[in-house]
């Protein structure tokens, strides 16, 4: 999933708000799980490390599933911006049905 950075995504310091990066990673993991597992899921837990500030450009989140259990899925997202890694997220999603 990608996101073109606009002014509404920035905090007062002029860099992309942490919540925006979180949303991008969370969404891409959710879609990755749905594309593989084909079941409804929801975020149970997520941890994100911010590696570099983003001031503009196109952010890209690449997700992959690390472990698929009966009720839980562990997945990872790597977020880059114009080729530079800017954040990494690790999430646990709960399968709903």
């Amino acid at each position, binding site marked *: 999933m990608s996101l073109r950075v606009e002014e*509404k995504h920035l905090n*007062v310091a002029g860099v992309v*708000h942490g919540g925006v990066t979180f949303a991008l990673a969370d969404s891409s993991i959710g879609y990755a799980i749905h594309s593989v597992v084909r079941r409804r899921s*929801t975020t149970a837990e997520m941890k*994100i*490390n*911010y590696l570099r500030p983003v001031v503009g450009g196109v952010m890209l989140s690449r997700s992959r599933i690390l472990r698929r259990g009966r009720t839980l899925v562990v997945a990872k997202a790597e977020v880059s911006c114009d080729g530079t890694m800017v954040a990494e997220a690790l999430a646990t999603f709960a399968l*709903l049905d």
Partner: protein
Amino acid sequence: MSSDDSRQTRSRPRSLTGGREAISGRPPSAKLPSIAGAPSELAGIERVAGVEPGTVLRLEAGSNHLDQHGAVDASVLFLLADTAVALEILRSQRTDCTTAEAKINILRPVSSGLVVARARILHVKDGLVVAEASLRCEGRRVAEALFTYALLPSPKREGAAASAGSP
């Protein structure tokens, strides 16, 4: 605030945050400082007025916050927690900061109601701050978040000191 809301506040039915200074009913809101950033304002996050010291924010969960299952999206809860912690650090440390690392556990789905986030600083050392945010909705704990923030030099304040005649 509607008349219904003011009745609730007077009768103090339930604690929303469950903290030491529990906030009851429908706490009054105040405008979020602009330093919170555009995403927080766009999401409709407000400050809870009259909570001193400390930072407590609130968000009325609406249809624009929901995911495809009808629950408030984890990103929205994260944004609320992140903003609360950032404002608490700004208030207590008087310097700019940025999120270095964050973890959130979503404990219960929230489909509607007032979500209240209370931020608390746990540790400050060597330019890093560890802080937590507890999110409650209608008295029930809905999420817990733990953050590491990096403190940043504040160019605005340095500039202000220089212009005020520092040597």
